[in-house]
């Protein structure tokens, strides 16, 4: 086998007397010409002087054209954009050829981003629903009325009755401010799109080895010798990522393996395609691992040094024989074997997944299985390997990191008293005051009972410390009997701040919930379906927010790099940037001074850079501390100096840094840590961006050492595993005196997460150690419902015969404050009435809930009809031809009317719907309900109207990738 690996090395060394292959992709010399006469030297010799004539006064490229650098807002790749603005009007868009992530490339959405400057279907001014009609109101009126209502609800119900639903499209500063505001208000009912996107990833991955983010980067895929994608379709969801994957495919001969129920556009370019039954990821992954263990292909040394619990995994994997794998998932042994062998033979290989793997009741099992697979092969902590998780929206990574979540504060500190106290210090506020903002109720530690007033002796958890209601369940917060909810009252007010409703399941119930609310507020550049899907007559406010093109701030790409956006144009119409709206609202609610205590505010707009600095002051856990606004702006100005593959600057003003200072960027900005491009890579020193696995789960379990054995970072002074650093530990190691006096004051009694001076981190790194310790990754998570990831059938399964062997969980009385059903739903067999498996996914032209992109004429023209993909066999059975209108009825008796697209992409018995459409509801066209002039160009049914109940056993992620339906001709 090694002989064969060497051969590929030989291929590269053969001198074919052609220019280096890098030029095949790097067309810089050939194509650069974004500034008037700068590039295009090759071109100059070939174009006649007539063509090169300089622009005239009326030209579009005159001397008064500003070139503004920003980042696309449509996905987490974070493509660079150069916007050309003349007199405040956005007139042109040039490719950013030297941007390290995309090299000027875009997908349909990025190529159309200039339409944000047109904004014809935008929400133009604050609007209120009065007696069923939309009425324009002023900002003052809107804020006052909303504020009054919120304060009223606070008094008559509780602060927990207001739901603050934030956004993955906020900048980091806005996301942080939003989370802080929810804390100032006094509730943990705050969440955003990550819940329904990668929450299971974050939970599963973080609980395996410390951080729950993409471990390497899109660019690092250039070094991969194999690429495996499961439940991911980057050809449509992250097209520019394909640029990097193709580089691996063409230059490294990397086999591309795609595991998906659909033959996606990505699969069309793959070498191996495994068609699985939706929801059967575990059988396939364990099936692959079966062959790996059986043939001894696992990396035994790596496992010995850096992995805990692989023995338990082996036992589980041994049950997944080829026959069982095929029986459950439908994938025959030769394909599973081929995929396993391809990954084993071609290391390092990278593992990519998206919603296909995460949106299940066993999502956290899936994500952990993926991690275990890579651990088994030793593909972690190496360039070209890793678990490269492609996140969704442009700043879902940032919003997640900044804690716009119901179960944590910024930086994943959690909701414990210690966490609140840490942030109270950062926010320079009195902890007791913050606590006083919360409702004064508590629950017993197991969260199963509601107890009246807070009582220390009952070992109760104050509602300040218990997880709030997640966005996937907000409707139950309204509709469920309040005695069953672990908070005082139902939700009465819902604030959709940059979040669409049609990305959550159970649309019919959502309509009811919206109608039951006392107040519905939508803060968004577009009305979204929240404005129209209900039949309310009043109590709805639409506040126009500015897009990210009309403000500035930082954004975190999926690879943890933080990029700085400059403002392209002023906010259109009467819209305002989100942080300005937050401040105005905070003023009305009486918490503005606390919200922006150390943040300068001018004309109600908090200074973005001050917010960044506050983030830097408090986010020690994941190293958001070194990315000061100055460093980030420097990177933006010099983004051309960063290497395409390694992302490191060679020379130039940011010499030595990795682009965007990917977190963890340890210590204070002064320490000038370069960022960590690949997580858990011990081949570099921590100071150079290397890292070990985090010591997060204790030092030993069942008598087994949880710290790393014999594996440690380069130049580490401790030549073995070690726990996380604290002031005490520094003293024990004799490194205490390396701290400066002021650092000593701050570090006394603190650890690497709570030392606000950053001294503990600095000293640990000085000695070559990771501040968070050096431990083993754990293949089993003993705090999760399934410590060893196992397969469980979906709640609505087409194979009810398998439920006996692979049942779902028991129903839970109180989980994230709500009763959550599992077994009681799976008990009934729906597969006869609803014989087709329903799954959902993305289209390249649209993003998320879709109102923004469907309001862009250039994109909307390309996808004008909502559709369902169905196999010819199912179409023939239903008497349906391609293009016919059909009813897709979900198993909970909601139905949607869509066009049938008969295709072999899906297997027989499986149907696929894109989830980006909204504006029709169960056959009814809601166009007339939109405020004048702001209905998107294209409307359609929301796929999630027909999607059903089902929530992940750890994070409440919705199960929207495997439900059941029946399809009939309309």
């Amino acid at each position, binding site marked *: 086998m090694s002989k064969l690996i060497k*051969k590929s090395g030989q291929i590269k060394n053969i001198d074919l007397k*052609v220019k280096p292959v890098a030029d095949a992709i790097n067309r810089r010399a050939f194509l650069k010409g974004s500034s008037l006469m700068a590039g295009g030297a090759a071109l100059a010799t070939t174009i006649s002087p007539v063509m090169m004539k300089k622009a005239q006064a009326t030209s579009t490229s005159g001397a008064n054209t500003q070139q503004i650098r920003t980042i696309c807002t449509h996905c987490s790749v974070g493509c660079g954009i150069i916007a050309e603005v003349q007199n405040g009007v956005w007139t042109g868009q040039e490719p950013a050829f030297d941007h390290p992530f995309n090299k000027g490339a875009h997908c349909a959405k990025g190529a159309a981003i200039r339409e944000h400057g047109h904004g014809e279907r935008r929400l133009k001014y604050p609007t209120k629903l009065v007696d069923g009609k939309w009425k324009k109101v002023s900002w003052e009126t809107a804020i006052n009325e909303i504020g009054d209502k919120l304060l009223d609800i606070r008094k008559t119900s509780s602060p927990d009755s207001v739901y603050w639903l934030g956004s993955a499209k906020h900048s980091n500063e806005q996301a942080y401010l939003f989370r802080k505001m929810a804390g100032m208000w006094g509730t943990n009912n705050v969440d955003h799109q990550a819940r329904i996107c990668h929450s299971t990833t974050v939970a599963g991955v973080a609980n395996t080895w410390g951080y729950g983010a993409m471990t390497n980067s899109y660019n690092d895929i250039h070094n991969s010798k194999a690429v495996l994608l499961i439940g991911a379709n980057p050809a449509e969801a992250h097209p520019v990522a394909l640029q990097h994957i193709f580089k691996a495919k063409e230059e490294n001969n990397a086999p591309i393996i795609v595991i998906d129920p659909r033959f996606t556009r990505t699969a069309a370019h793959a070498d191996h395609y495994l068609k699985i039954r939706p929801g059967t990821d575990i059988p396939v992954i364990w099936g692959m691992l079966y062959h790996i263990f059986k043939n001894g292909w696992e990396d035994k040394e790596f496992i010995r040094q850096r992995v805990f619990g692989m023995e338990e995994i082996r036992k589980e994997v041994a049950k997944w024989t080829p026959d069982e794998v095929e029986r459950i998932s439908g994938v025959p*042994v030769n*394909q599973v074997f081929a995929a396993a062998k391809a990954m084993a033979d071609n290391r390092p290989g990278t593992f990519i997944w998206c919603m296909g793997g995460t949106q299940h009741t066993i999502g956290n099992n899936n994500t952990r299985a993926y991690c275990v697979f890579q651990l088994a092969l030793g593909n972690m902590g190496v360039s070209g390997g890793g678990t490269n998780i492609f996140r969704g929206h442009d700043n879902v990574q940032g919003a997640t990191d900044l804690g716009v979540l119901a179960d944590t504060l910024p930086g994943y500190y959690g909701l414990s008293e210690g966490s609140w106290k840490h942030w109270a210090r950062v926010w320079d506020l009195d902890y007791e005051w913050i606590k006083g903002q919360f409702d004064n109720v508590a629950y017993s530690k197991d969260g199963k009972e509601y107890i009246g007033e807070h009582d220390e002796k009952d070992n109760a958890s104050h509602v300040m410390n218990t997880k709030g209601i997640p966005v996937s369940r907000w409707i139950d917060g309204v509709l469920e009997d309040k005695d069953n909810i672990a908070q005082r009252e139902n939700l009465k007010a819902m604030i959709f701040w940059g979040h669409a409703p049609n990305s959550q399941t159970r649309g019919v119930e959502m309509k009811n919930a919206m109608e039951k609310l006392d107040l519905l507020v939508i803060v968004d550049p577009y009305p979204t379906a929240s404005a129209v899907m209900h039949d309310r007559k009043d109590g709805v406010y639409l506040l126009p927010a500015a897009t990210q093109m009309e403000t500035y701030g930082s954004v975190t790409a999926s690879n943890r790099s933080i990029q700085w956006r400059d403002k392209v144009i002023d906010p259109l119409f009467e819209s305002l940037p989100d942080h300005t709206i937050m401040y105005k609202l905070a003023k009305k609610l009486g918490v503005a001074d606390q919200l922006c205590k150390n943040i300068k505010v001018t004309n109600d707009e908090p200074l973005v850079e001050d917010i960044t600095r506050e983030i830097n002051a408090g986010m020690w856990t994941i190293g958001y501390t070194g990315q000061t606004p100055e460093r980030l702006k420097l990177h933006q100005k010099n983004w051309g100096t960063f290497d395409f593959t390694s992302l490191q600057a060679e020379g130039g003003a940011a010499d030595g840094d990795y682009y965007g200072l990917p977190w963890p960027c340890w210590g204070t900005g002064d320490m000038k840590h370069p960022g960590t491009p690949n997580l858990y890579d011990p081949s570099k020193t921590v100071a150079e961006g290397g890292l070990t696995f985090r010591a997060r789960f204790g030092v030993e379990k069942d008598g087994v050492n949880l710290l790393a054995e014999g594996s440690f970072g380069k130049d580490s002074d401790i030549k073995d595993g070690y726990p996380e650093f604290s002031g005490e530990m520094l003293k024990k190691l004799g490194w205490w005196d390396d701290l400066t006096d002021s650092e000593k004051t701050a570090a006394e009694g603190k650890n690497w997460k709570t030392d606000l001076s950053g001294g503990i981190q600095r000293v640990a790194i000085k000695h070559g150690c990771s501040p968070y310790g050096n431990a083993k990754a754990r293949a089993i998570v003993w705090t999760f419902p399934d410590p060893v990831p196992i397969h469980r059938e979906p709640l609505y399964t087409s194979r009810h015969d398998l439920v006996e062997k692979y049942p779902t969980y028991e129903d839970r009385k109180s989980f994230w404050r709500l009763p959550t059903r599992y077994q009681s739903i799976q008990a009934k067999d729906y597969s006869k009435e609803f014989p087709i498996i329903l799954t959902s996914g993305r289209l390249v032209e649209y993003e998320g809930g879709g109102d923004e992109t469907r309001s862009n004429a250039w994109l909307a023209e390309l*996808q*004008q009809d909502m559709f369902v993909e169905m196999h010819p066999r199912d179409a023939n059975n239903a008497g349906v031809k391609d293009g016919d209108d059909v009813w897709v009825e979900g198993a909970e008796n909601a139905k949607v009317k869509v066009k049938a697209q008969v295709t072999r992409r899906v297997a027989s018995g499986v149907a696929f719907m894109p989830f980006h459409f909204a504006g029709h509801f169960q056959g009814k066209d809601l166009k007339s309900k939109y405020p004048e002039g702001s209905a998107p160009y294209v409307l359609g049914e929301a796929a999630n109207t027909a999607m059903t109940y089902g929530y992940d056993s750890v994070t409440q992620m919705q199960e929207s990738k495997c439900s059941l339906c029946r399809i009939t001709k309309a």
Partner: protein
Amino acid sequence: MIKPIFRIKIEQLVRPVFLILLLFVILLQNSHAIDTPQQQGISIKNPGSDLWREVRQRDTAIQGTTQIKSVDSNVLINPQADRWTRFRVDKLINIGFIVLGSVIGVILVFFLLRGRVKIEGGLSGNMVFRFHDFERVLHWVLALVFLFLALTGFTLLFGRTLFIPILGHDIFSLLASSSKEGHNLFGPIFMVSLLMMFISFVKRNIYEKGDLTWLLRGGGMIGKSHVTGGFFNMGEKSWYWLVILIGFAISATGLILLFPSFGQGRIIMELSHVIHVFGAIILITVSFGHMYLGTLGTEGTGESMKTGYVDIKWAEAHHDRWAKHCHDNNLVITADEYARLQGKGKVGYEPVSTTAGESGK
């Protein structure tokens, strides 16, 4: 022919190809079996190569899918396009010139040689009524519209070759644009007139005994033997049916070309275009003959469409059975009577029998 988009110089490929072959040989040496259960593999050669083989064959339009909703937007390459273009540019225009030009030439030569076909013994002056007002108006409307369509059609077909050198691009563009609009506007008018023409004359154009003989003898042009004909002789009947049938074809294809918004693809349009132009050329060519015969070519014919009356001698010469019918039914009027009708301004409707003893005023 569409030339290939880029050319690879052969010599540049030799080394890489050789090295690839060498590689192939080397790699083959290293194959060895793996022990695993179940060896049968699924081997798919690069599916792209089959696809492009299909595309290169290019006999039929290669259809795919696309997000753009437009006519033929899902067609990758239309192989007919090239054939049609070359046909129109290289052949059709030339054929048109040749056919039209040569027919004019033939008629000219014929006229020079044969001269005007006169009535034996001259015209008598005794007239017989032939065509109603309505029929004559219809004929002229149809004729004028037809001429207009022919001229505007010519402008579009031959204009580039003939007029641009004279008028220049800008002026010709104006001319062509108005020709196109005019052609589009009058096309439906032509269709309506054609339909009415059909209805008016169809009964008189049904095949009768003796028509075939007429045809085979070239209407009397071949040899001196006498040919017989009814109200319309076979010559006119042939012309009638030619106009109707080809006119119908031109109308149908014209409609297809006129309304592109019904999703008809390019192949239908190209075919329609060819039929339309061919039909038009044939019709115009034969219409030269018709126009010649109706004016210079034969004596006494033009009057039928101008006044509605024809000389009885003319009728006897060309439409003997109809002439007999007129005689039998006392439909012939004298010259005086005819003059009177003309003077009164009435364009003759009620023929007066000569035997009735009507005398002129």
